[in-house]
């Protein structure tokens, strides 16, 4: 089963390999990982998408909590959350396909960020499934390159995750 975990870590040298090394060393999956500083700039937030049964997820959260640089682990399995991912997609564009590409961009509320006579580069944000869907529609035009950020998530409701919680 797919799980999304957010991790608040000390914004310090060498923290990323501690987390990624834990996953590889113990045979846990990382489907995606994103990391950036938070409101409190001494803290970074990682979002990791992983998979496994309940027992594995329990081990993952416990093992993460055991790392000295990990301040908090938030498992979104049983909580409502908003999930967004960003993708930038470079597509071949010729006279015939240009209009169709723009229509798809419009439908997905994406933006064109770069244009050349032979290509469009578009930016799209949404749930990973929305991005998958858009990619499938664009595939027949000729996908040249895709960069995805990996999902980030935010819990729903007024409560915010800070280190004091």
């Amino acid at each position, binding site marked *: 089963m797919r799980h999304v975990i957010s991790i608040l870590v000390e914004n310090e040298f*060498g923290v990323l*390999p501690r987390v990624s*090394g834990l996953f590889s060393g113990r045979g846990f999956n990382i489907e995606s990982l994103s990391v950036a500083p938070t409101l409190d700039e001494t803290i970074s937030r990682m979002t990791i998408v992983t998979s496994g049964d309940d027992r594995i997820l329990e*081990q993952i959260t416990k093992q993460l909590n055991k790392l000295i640089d*990990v301040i908090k682990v938030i498992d979104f399995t049983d909580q409502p959350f908003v999930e967004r991912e960003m993708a930038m997609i470079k597509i071949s564009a010729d006279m015939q396909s240009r209009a169709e590409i723009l229509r798809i961009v419009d439908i997905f509320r994406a933006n064109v960020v770069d244009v050349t006579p032979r290509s469009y580069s578009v930016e799209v944000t949404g749930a990973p499934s929305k991005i998958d869907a858009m990619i499938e529609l664009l595939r027949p035009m000729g996908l040249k390159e895709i960069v995805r950020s990996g999902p980030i998530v935010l819990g729903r409701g007024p409560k915010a995750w800070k280190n004091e919680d």
Partner: protein
Amino acid sequence: MKKTGSQILLECLQLEGVETIFGYPGGTVINLYDDLMDTPINHILTRHEQAAVHAADAYARATGKVGVAIATSGPGATNTVTGIATAYMDSTPMVIITGQVPTPLIGNDAFQEADMVGITRPITKHNYLVRDVKDLARIVKQAFHIASTGRPGPVLIDLPKDIQVASTTFFYPDTVELRGYKPTIIPNPRQLDKAAEMILAARKPVLYVGGGATLSDVDKELMILAEAIQAPVTTTLMGMSSFPSRHPLSLGMLGMHGTFYANMAVTNSDLLIALGARFDDRVTGKIATFAPNAKIIHVDVDPTSIKKNVRVDLPVVGVLPKVLPGLIERLQKDPETLERVVASSQAWRNQVQEWKEQHPMTYKNTKATIKPQYVIEKLCELTADDAIITTEVGQHQMWAAQFYDFSVPRTFLTSGGLGTMGFGLPAALGAQAAFPKRQVIDISGDGSFQMNSQELATLVQYRLPVKIVILNNNFLGMVRQWQQLFFDKRYSQTCMELPIDFIKLAQAYGAEGFRATKPEEVEKVLRQGLETPGPVIMEFKVAREENVLPMVPAGAGLNEMVLS
């Protein structure tokens, strides 16, 4: 007043109460070693960095204090890796300091550069690369705190040469501020209530005691608990000295080479109370048939140990010195109930007694060849109760666990988790440095001994009167045993063809050596060896193809033991 990085480090060590350290110098710690001369810290120069770490590890295991070892960068630092991994697996509180090339050179493949923080990340509780001398005192403070609290473990500080020379105002913080590190010490009282209820409802309880009990010195509390509920007690290799082997409730060790009765008791129990043990695969055998009818209470300070390998009915996170008194208090609140419960488990104790009589821990002695088990039994008779026994890894280690009676905590120092051959001799060195007056004995095999035999020099130089018992079967015995049982006796690369003259080896280093080749010489050689001052090797030419029994073959259930 300003101090240099190396002065600050040494000052911090003294403030942490460090008296003895183990190490080996080199280019990137030369400043540190220079300043060391001006401190009262006692430094023991081993002959290999691995040995320095094992010695510091054993010093910590024997005393309960944090062990400290130093090595230079590059090869010195990489030589510490096996020692660090050994300490990590057995949760020894340690601080290892390695020199590093100057900060501007880091990452340039400089002479004797190795990325120690990268290399030791998975085998340390935490590690640091010091990048500013202003951080050093705080880092040392944190390192000692992390190493010695919660589930203890080794912490490495990688200290570049330029940081050792740079100076700053010295200030040692009183407290540690680590928002990501708050181990749960005090157990949840409701979990203790439930644990007490489960214990009072059990009819076939077993206490399963691991290294956590040894590390937290709860032998007294453990005894009170065991006697209060009259439950049989089995220990892991690491828990061995926390409960006296000769106590009527003792089942000895469980697991692959555990006693028949310990494995039978665990398999048939209705409640398993795990105290500071982690259900290692050498302990559980096949998980599917492990204690199939038992409810499991698992007490551990490390939440990751709980439910990692086996299902657990009641997890209790906390340290044993807080858990056990709480539990005992609850159980003794109502003496009548407790008495009734104890009476109701009498049938269980009778059953356990039957198992003990059915297959006691034994071996067949002979007149012709020395049996290794016999040497251990005799050694046990001739040594003091508080003698410290270290071992290497192999058959001799298991025989030591099976046939030596331990009654004093922290007297059995062995590499349980990593199973490191070459641990025992430097470990004996470290333990003897901690307790110069006590008997310290390394029980060794001829294979393991040769992994760190250079430490004989250290023993002689520092007048550490360690006694070494070599059970010489001219084989890598434990591997040979597996080859005999599971590979049709195809002894691939386990015969140590070249017979070593261990007596001459001892003499070459300025130590003494004695040899026994016949059973009737065993006692004499042991007495002679133990009475001779200074380091001594006692070599016993033992039955070459003796096996460690009982044995639960890998992958089999605990009750499927090979008994003979």
